[in-house]
């Protein structure tokens, strides 16, 4: 039996063991059954939820908040990051602010956002935006500054204007990095989107979790987590495809 196969089998065995152990402990009354739901009951809950339309609406709600905050974050982060990488003046001016705001744990700002924007979806979107924008900004800035000098010098020598320099050298060069940092950012963005729903609104996967906690319905929590994990994997795979296609012409 080849090693690849033996690994797969071992993985499945481990997975089965974990699920089996979980079910066993719950049935044996080891944990407080309310707090730690059994795999069986979670599966049940999932099944009934998936039949009902509300879970799809919740998913869409979360995805919508994620999408807006994320795309805005990537756009703004790329723009400012490029600017800071290219212009020494802009970099010197903005770095103290960026460094300071980046060091502040953005999730700690949730009560502020709620106070300011209320309990709707906007505070969630702003939260996702704030987290994503710094991640992208710093990565983009670093990648602009890491472009080998001779590419920039050569482009200047053959007559590129400032705009052409950005379009022909900087943007393609950082494009690679933006895509790979975008992958990491969306994973985190999804989690932040969920957390954002803890504190406001009446929809979304995060709200499901919060509702599950409030009503001691752990099945609901686990179900929401499973759905989120699946979503995360799907999104990551999609971005993986984009990443691979973009890496075609890399040296």
């Amino acid at each position: 039996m080849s090693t690849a196969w033996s690994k797969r089998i071992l993985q499945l065995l481990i997975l089965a063991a974990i699920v089996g152990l979980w079910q066993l402990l719950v049935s044996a009354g080891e944990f407080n059954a309310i707090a730690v739901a059994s795999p069986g009951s979670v599966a049940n809950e999932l099944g009934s939820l998936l039949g009902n339309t509300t879970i799809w609406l919740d998913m869409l709600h979360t995805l919508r908040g994620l999408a807006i905050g994320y795309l805005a974050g990537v756009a703004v982060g790329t723009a400012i990051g490029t600017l800071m990488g290219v212009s020494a003046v802009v970099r010197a001016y903005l770095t103290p602010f960026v460094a300071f705001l980046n060091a502040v744990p953005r999730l700690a700002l949730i009560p502020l956002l709620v106070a300011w924007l209320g309990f709707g979806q906007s505070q969630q979107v702003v939260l996702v935006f704030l987290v994503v924008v710094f991640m992208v900004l710093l990565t983009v800035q670093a990648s602009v500054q890491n472009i080998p000098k001779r590419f920039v010098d050569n482009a200047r020598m053959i007559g590129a204007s400032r705009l052409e320099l950005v379009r022909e050298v900087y943007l393609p060069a950082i494009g690679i990095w933006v895509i790979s940092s975008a992958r990491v950012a969306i994973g985190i963005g999804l989690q932040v989107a969920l957390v954002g729903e803890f504190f406001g609104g009446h929809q979304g996967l995060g709200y499901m979790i919060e509702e599950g906690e409030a009503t001691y319905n752990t099945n609901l929590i686990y179900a929401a987590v499973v759905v989120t994990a699946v979503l995360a994997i799907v999104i990551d795979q999609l971005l993986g495809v984009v990443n691979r296609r973009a890496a075609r012409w890399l040296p």
Partner: protein
Amino acid sequence: MMPETAPSRETVMSAPLLEVDVRHEIKGERQKTANLVLSDVSLRVNAGEFVSIVGPSGCGKSTLLTLIAGLARPSGGTIKINGEQVTGVRPDVGFIFQQDALLPWRTASENVQLALKFRGVAKAERRRRAAEWMDRFGLEDLHERYPREMSGGQRKRAAIAATLVYEPRLLLMDEPFSALDVQTRDFIETDVLSAWSQTEDQTALLVTHDLEEAIALSDRVVVMSQSPGRVVSDYAVDIPRPRDIMDVRTTEHFQVLHKKIWADLRTQVLQGATPGNSW
């Protein structure tokens, strides 16, 4: 030692194309002090000349070229091209880097067209001109290749074509052939020399550590001192043109010159080395 004056390819009575009188220092990262890289370098190059600069490692010859290109500003002194002071990058100056600077996300043809694109040349026209130059350098079948798919020699040729395509009046080259194997080097040098001689009034300034290459290609060889660098001597290379790069080295004329300049260069190299610190 007094620099010997150089008879150029055609005796030009007007002012030199390039006038350099600079000193330059670079501020260190950690230390607060500045490193003097070039101390009072004076150089005159006439239009149409092919001049090489040789010198010990670290003597600042690459830095000098960067300053002439306008990519950096000298700490003190002036550089004038055609009587105008150099304040930045100029469209009539070309630079060939030691490592090729072809954009990895563009094909060879697109890379060569880039300079023309920046000059507003129409698409069909620039494709034609790029193809012309690429063929001159032996890249006939490689137009649609990406740099990643080409050998080192092919990339170097493409990089040279990408600079020559806009026929710069002053061509600066910073050890462009050092990364190539000897045979490839000879072929590419031949192509560069023929391109230069066919381009009207093109002036070339080559920085190299290979003295043979310098003599084989140039009208003049300038020797620089150890760091902080300055011009120590200026030799005329009056081997007649057109030259055969591969054969010229075996001629007696060449050997004599080589011996003379090498002795000079060696003195400069050894001046920096004391017993035990050559590591």
